C-alpha cells in the first residue's frame, strides 16, 4: 500500500465520505458485521476491548488493546478469556465505562428478536446451553429469560474492571472474535433496543450529531473522549460527514473532477470509470489499487437435483470463461487474479497453492469448452440424470444479484457455457434479497455468485462458514454429498485445535479437498480500488477490514 506519504498529518477540517448506499447496514455495535462499517465505527464512534492495529500493510492484521489493557488472557486450554479494562475511559455522557457495560453489551447479542444481523460468535462460543430448536436458553437482557446462565458465562470482577468469558469449547483466537464491536460495551440505562442502531452512545473521539437514512451522518468531536486513554485514534478531522444515497454516476463525477476535494469515496468507482481514473496521470495522487481480503467465486450447489455429479461440476469449472468476466469488471489489473483456493494468500499461515483445478493442464483462463464437453460426455454415462438436467430443458441455473454488471456477465457466461453443451439459465435476484435467497437451499439455483473474506487471520473463519452445513455461508449444498460426513468431522476437529501450525496444515488439506470436490467455481483473488479527493491525506488500506485505514485519514 502506498498513499500515506511524507507530509505531516493535520488536525481539523471536515472529512466527507460519499456512498451510494442509503445507510450504514448497522450502527449498533452488536449488529455491526460489515468490514467497512466496523472499521468506520471502531475508528470514530466506539471503542472495543481490542482492535486491529491502525497500520497499513500486513502489520495491520495484528491486534492492539483498546478499551482493555491487554489483548486477552486465555486460560483453561483457551476456554476462559480475561480482559482488564483501561481506567479513565468515558462514555459520551461522561460516565466511566465499566465491565458491566461490556457484559451488558455482549448479552444483547442473545436478544435475537431485537438484535439481528450481528455476528453470532458469542452465541456459538459462550458456555450457555441451547434449546432443542437451536436457540440459546438465554433470551437476552430485554426479556431476561435465563439471565443466570449468562451471568455465569460472563463475569465481572469486584472492581468492575475485569471481564471473564467462559467458553463452551476451546477457542484459541477468541480475542480476534472480541475485536468485533459485538463484544463491545453498551450502557444498560442508555440502551434503546432497536433504536440504538440509529444513535449508539459514543465512546470514541466523535459522537453522532445527526444521522438520517438516505441522507447523511454527521460526526462531531466527543468532548468526553480523552486522547490520553486512546493509543489507537489520532482523530484528525473536526467533523466527519457521510453522504448517503448519491447516484453512482454522481460519485464518479465528484471523484473525476475532484469537485469536493476533501472527499473519500466509500464505494470505489464504477468499473467503467476505473480505467480512466487509473490510467491518467492527473489522478495518480488520488488512487490506490490493492488486494482486498476477498475471494470471489460461484458456489456450486452439489445437493441432489442440482450439480450432484463431480464430473458436471468439473465441466462447469473448465468451461468457465474467467478471463472475459475479469475483463468485464476492469481486467486483471483492477478486478483480480485467478486463484486456486477459497483461502486467500494474505492469510499466510493457512494458505498453500492447491493442485489440480486451475493448475490442471486443461485449464484455460478463457475457458476450455472442448475439455469441458469431454467431461460432460463422461457424465452422460456416469450420472445421466444430472447430465440430462444441465444440458436439457431444465438447464443449469445461475443465481446472480440483479445489477447491470451481472446482467452483462450473464451474456459472457452463457456464451462460454453453451459452447461446452450446458443449457444455461439465470436467476437474477434483487440486491437486497440476494444472499437470503441463495442461502436458502430450497431457493438456491445450481451455481450462486458469492464472495467471502476471513473474519480474521485464521481459516477457521473461512473453511467452516463456507463448507459446514450450519457454517453460515455454505452455498455448495455439500451436506447432502456422501463425502460430507468425513469432511465435516475433520473441520470440527480442526476448529478445536489450539496448536496453530497443526491447525494451519489441516486447513490447507481441507481447502485442497474442497477444491477437489469442485464445490466452488474458479476462485478469483480480487482487488479493490480506492479513490479520494486531493485534500484528503494519510490514505492507506486497512488490510483486515478491507477498506480505508480510517484512523489515519486527515484533511489537508
Amino acid at each position, binding site marked *: 500500500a502506498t498513499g500515506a506519504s511524507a507530509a505531516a498529518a493535520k488536525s481539523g477540517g471536515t472529512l466527507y465520505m460519499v456512498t451510494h448506499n442509503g445507510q450504514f447496514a448497522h450502527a449498533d455495535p452488536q449488529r455491526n458485521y460489515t468490514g467497512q462499517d466496523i472499521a468506520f465505527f471502531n475508528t470514530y464512534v466506539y471503542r472495543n476491548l481490542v482492535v486491529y492495529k491502525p497500520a497499513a500493510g500486513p502489520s495491520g492484521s495484528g491486534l492492539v488493546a483498546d478499551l482493555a489493557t491487554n489483548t486477552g488472557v486465555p486460560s483453561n486450554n483457551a476456554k476462559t478469556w480475561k480482559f482488564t479494562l483501561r481506567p479513565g475511559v468515558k462514555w459520551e455522557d461522561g460516565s466511566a465505562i465499566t465491565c458491566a457495560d461490556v457484559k451488558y453489551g455482549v448479552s444483547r447479542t442473545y436478544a435475537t428478536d431485537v438484535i439481528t444481523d450481528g455476528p453470532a460468535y458469542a452465541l456459538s462460543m459462550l458456555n450457555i446451553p441451547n434449546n432443542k430448536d437451536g436457540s440459546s436458553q438465554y433470551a437476552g437482557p430485554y426479556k431476561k429469560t435465563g439471565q443466570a446462565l449468562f451471568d455465569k458465562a460472563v463475569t465481572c470482577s469486584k472492581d468492575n474492571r475485569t471481564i471473564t468469558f467462559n467458553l463452551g469449547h476451546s477457542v484459541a483466537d477468541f480475542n480476534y472474535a472480541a475485536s468485533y464491536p459485538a463484544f463491545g460495551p453498551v450502557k444498560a440505562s442508555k440502551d434503546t433496543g432497536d433504536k440504538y442502531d440509529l444513535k449508539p452512545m459514543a465512546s470514541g473521539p466523535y459522537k453522532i450529531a445527526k444521522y438520517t437514512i438516505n441522507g447523511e451522518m454527521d460526526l462531531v468531536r466527543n468532548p468526553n473522549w480523552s486522547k490520553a486513554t486512546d493509543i489507537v485514534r489520532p482523530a484528525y478531522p473536526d467533523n466527519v460527514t457521510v453522504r448517503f444515497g448519491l447516484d*453512482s*454516476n454522481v460519485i*464518479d463525477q465528484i471523484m*473525476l473532477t475532484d469537485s469536493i476535494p476533501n472527499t473519500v469515496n466509500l464505494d470505489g468507482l*464504477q*468499473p*467503467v*470509470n*476505473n*480505467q*480512466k481514473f487509473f490510467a491518467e496521470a492527473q489522478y495518480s495522487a488520488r488512487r490506490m489499487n490493492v488486494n482486498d481480503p476477498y475471494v470471489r467465486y460461484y458456489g456450486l450447489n452439489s445437493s441432489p437435483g442440482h450439480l450432484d455429479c463431480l464430473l458436471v461440476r468439473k465441466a462447469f469449472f473448465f468451461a468457465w470463461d474467467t478471463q*472475459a468476466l475479469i*475483463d*468485464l*469488471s*476492469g*481486467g486483471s*489489473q*483492477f478486478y483480480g487474479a485467478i486463484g486456486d483456493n477459497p483461502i486467500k494468500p494474505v492469510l499466510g499461515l493457512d494458505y498453500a497453492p492447491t493442485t489440480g483445478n486451475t493448475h490442471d493442464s486443461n485449464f484455460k483462463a478463457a475457458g476450455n469448452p472442448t475439455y469441458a464437453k469431454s467431461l460432460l460426455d463422461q457424465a452422460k454415462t456416469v450420472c445421466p440424470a444430472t447430465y440430462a438436467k444441465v444440458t436439457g430443458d431444465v438447464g443449469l441455473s445461475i443465481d446472480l444479484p*440483479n*445489477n*447491470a*454488471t451481472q*446482467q*452483462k*456477465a*450473464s*451474456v*459472457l457466461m*452463457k*456464451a462460454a457455457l453453451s459452447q461446452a453443451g450446458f443449457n444455461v*439459465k*439465470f436467476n*437474477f*435476484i*434483487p440486491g437486497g*434479497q440476494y444472499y437470503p435467497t441463495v442461502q436458502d437451499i430450497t431457493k438456491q439455483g445450481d451455481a450462486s455468485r458469492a464472495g467471502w473474506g476471513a473474519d480474521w487471520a485464521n481459516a477457521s473463519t473461512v473453511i467452516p462458514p463456507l463448507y459446514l452445513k450450519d457454517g453460515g455461508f455454505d452455498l455448495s449444498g455439500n451436506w447432502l454429498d456422501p463425502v460430507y460426513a468425513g469432511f465435516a468431522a475433520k473441520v470440527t476437529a480442526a476448529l478445536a485445535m489450539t496448536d496453530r501450525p497443526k491447525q494451519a496444515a489441516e486447513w490447507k488439506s481441507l481447502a485442497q479437498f474442497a477444491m477437489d470436490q469442485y464445490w466452488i467455481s474458479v476462485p478469483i483473488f480480487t482487488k479493490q480500488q480506492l479513490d479520494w479527493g486531493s485534500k484528503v491525506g494519510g490514505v492507506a488500506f486497512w488490510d483486515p477490514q478491507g477498506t480505508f485505514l480510517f484512523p489515519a485519514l486527515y484533511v489537508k
Partner: protein
Amino acid sequence: MVLRTPRQISWMRFKRNKAAVISGLVALFFILSAFLAPLITKLVGVNPTTTYTKALTQYGMPDGPWGGISLAHPLGVEPGAGRDLLALLLYGSRISFTVALITSVASIGLGMLIGITAGYFRGRVDAVIGRFSDFILAFPSTFMIVALSLPLVQRVEALHVAKDNGARIVVLIIFFVVFGWPGFARLVRSQALSMRERDFVMAAQALGASNWRIITKEILPNLWPTAIVFLSLSLPGFLSAEATFSFLGVGVQAPSATWGLVLSDAVTYWQTDPAYLIIPSAMLVIIVLALNLMGDGVRDALDPKADSR
C-alpha cells in the same frame, strides 16, 4: 365532388401530411427491421449472441473510437460483453416492440370491451365497472410492478406458462395491461355513452337487434379511429415503460436484450463510451417521434372536422 369511402378520404388526407407519411415509413422501417432481424444480421455477418471479445480492449471497452464502429460492426460493439450493437438493437427491438405492441393491443382491447360494456349498459354495470377501475387506478402502478414482479415471475414459472424471460415478459404485459386498461376504458365509455344515444343505435334496436349485435356491429366500428390513435400514442409510452422497468431491474433480463436493457446499461458508460448511449437513445427518440407524428397524422386524417379548422 368525387365520392370516396371514409377510408379513402382518410388515406388521402394522411398521404398529404408529409410528416405523417415519413413518420409512418420510419416506423415501418423499424418494425420491418425487427421482423427481419435474422436476415439483416446474417447479411452484416454478425450474431446477437456471439461475444466479440476480440473487439474489446483488455478492460472490456470497445476497441476504436465511436464505440468501435467498423465495417464488421456498423454500430460498434457493446462494452463489457462485446456483442454487436446492431444485432443487439435489432434483436432487442423484437422483444421491446412485441411487449409494446401486445400491451397496447391488449390494454386497448380490454379497455374497449369494458368501456363499451359500461357505456352501453350504463346503470349498475357502469357503476360497478367504474368503481372497479377507480380501485385499480388507486394503486401506484410503477411501484406495484417493482414490488410484485419477481414473485409473480416465479408464480408464472411455477404454473408452467412460460419460463425465464418468457415469464418476465408475460408478467410485464399483465401488469401493463392491468394498469393500462382503465384509462382507455374511460375514454371509450364516454364515447359509448354518447354513441348509444345516437339514432342509429336506436334504429338497430327498432329492428330488433340484440345487445351483442349492437355493441359489435354498430358501436364498435365507430371506435376504431379512437383505438388506432390511442394505439399509436400508447406504443411509445410502453416502449419507454419497458426501458424504465429494465432500468429498475424488473423487466426482461440478460442475456436477452431489449432496448430498455441496452439503455439502462449504456447509462453507466456515458463517459467512457458515449456512442453506446447516444446510438440507442437516438433510435428511441426517432421511433417515438415517428409513432407520435404518425398518430397525429392518423387522428387528423380520421377527424372529419379536420379540414374546416
